[in-house]
């Protein structure tokens, strides 16, 4: 498999009130085409900055971001806008346009690309069906539940047939059951379309449930990366330790995280 995203020596600092903070301290990553790759990190690790560097909403100080063989830092403004259309992004707060109906939210990326009304309509209906929103097209986002909002976000991110989907804490604002539904949807889309998904999150469960490979971001550095199962089952790895710690805490509260996943799966079947 070829590499979809390659990040080399990525550095980024911010200056505020005269003092400089290095948020990313030389990130190296390569994400294969068609995989679901998880990046886990806790508050302040630099997750969002990393996500913003990948579609150049933030310009890195040093390093390279190569997407499908093209270094996006060398692109002109016009080319950059074109490349961004090939990278779908979904957000923690959904960031839907409240002035537009669900239909218009999903159709917006096509509209700004100058695609004809007829073709737009076809694509919107197809993707709405995929994310399960066919009956909500005329609703406004404010009238939807969190899970439905994120489905709109996913549909909007996918409408341009992107090669990459960046998920920046996409499930962090959702309840556990909805989180699971959204993760299932992402997995299904990955299987159907072969899209590369980069899942950036602080939720261990979400990574374990959906990713094949992962990296751990801490204080602007990748401190661990590799196969998800290996990392989680290795008791000496950073994540392994953390996970068993969280797991133990959950057990003392008499909730088993595996039981929870089972419960949520069953609940979904019942619904």
């Amino acid at each position, binding site marked *: 498999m070829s590499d979809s995203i390659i990040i080399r020596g990525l550095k980024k600092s911010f200056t505020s009130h005269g003092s400089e903070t290095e948020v990313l301290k030389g990130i190296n990553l390569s994400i294969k085409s068609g995989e679901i790759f998880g990046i886990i990190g806790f508050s302040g690790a630099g997750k969002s900055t990393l996500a913003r560097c990948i579609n150049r909403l933030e310009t890195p100080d040093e390093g390279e971001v190569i997407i499908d063989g093209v270094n996006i830092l060398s692109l002109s403004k016009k080319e950059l*806008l074109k490349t961004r259309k090939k990278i779908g*992004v979904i957000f923690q707060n959904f960031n839907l*346009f409240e*002035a537009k109906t669900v239909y218009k939210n999903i159709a917006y990326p096509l509209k700004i690309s100058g695609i004809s009304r007829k073709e737009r309509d076809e694509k919107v209906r197809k993707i709405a069906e995929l994310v399960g929103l066919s009956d909500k097209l005329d609703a406004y986002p404010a009238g939807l539940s969190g899970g439905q909002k994120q489905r709109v976000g996913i549909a909007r991110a996918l409408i341009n047939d992107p090669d990459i989907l960046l998920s920046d804490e996409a499930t962090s604002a959702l309840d556990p059951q909805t989180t699971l539904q959204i993760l299932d949807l992402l997995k299904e889309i990955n299987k159907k379309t072969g899209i590369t998904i980069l899942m950036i999150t602080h939720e261990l469960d979400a990574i374990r449930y959906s990713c094949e490979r992962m990296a751990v971001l801490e204080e602007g550095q990748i401190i661990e990366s590799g196969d998800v199962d290996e990392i989680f089952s290795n008791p000496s790895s950073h994540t392994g330790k953390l996970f068993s710690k969280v797991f133990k805490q959950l057990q003392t509260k008499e909730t088993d995280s595996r039981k929870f996943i089972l419960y949520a799966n069953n609940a979904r079947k019942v619904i």
Partner: protein
Amino acid sequence: MSLLDNPFWLVVKSSFSAAIWKEIFPSTVDTLYMTLIASLIMLVGGLLLGLLLTVTNPDGLIPVKIPYHAIGWFANVLRSLPEMIMIILMLPLARLIFGHSYGSNSCIIAISASCIPMFGRLVESSLLEIDKGKIEAAKSIGSSNRQIIFEILIPETLPSLIRNYTSAIITIVSMTALAGNFGAGGIGDIAVRYGYQRFMHDKLFACIYVLVILVMTIQGSGNLISKGILRKRHLV
């Protein structure tokens, strides 16, 4: 009829007489005319100014420091002039354009000069209310700055823009009343000439009715439209 030598209720009764409204009516038309034209000029000018201020803001779409501060400074200078002084200042300009410095059209110049910077600032504050995440989403979709402004920024903040526009129009109404003092005609002119200088309080009362109804209608329609949009978007 004056309150000085007539009981209150008689003055009120007289304020509804046909003779008075014969005079009030054309003045009302003048006031409406000034308000309407000035509101339209303000809408265009204020939107442009507000957009410029928002876009060039250090956190804006195209942060450019010097133009941002220059425009902001100029707007502040114009805003710090009271309407009365602005009218006096703009008299020569009106003479230059219309050949005379009196009449409704001449005063519209001064009113516009006052209310464009005011509405510009209101537009700026409305536009800055937008959730930055929406702009980020629009950018990551690959929107150009123009598309962000017209497809996202303005539609998303429309209810707030309408509310601020409503308040600004009401300020224009009060500005036209003051302009009446400087030969603009309209309701303000009647109120000063008859109500103040000649103690004809029935005419003053009639002016008050017109102004109250006018302001209430403007505020009411503004509220109705902006609430209607919010309700449609499920935001209330």
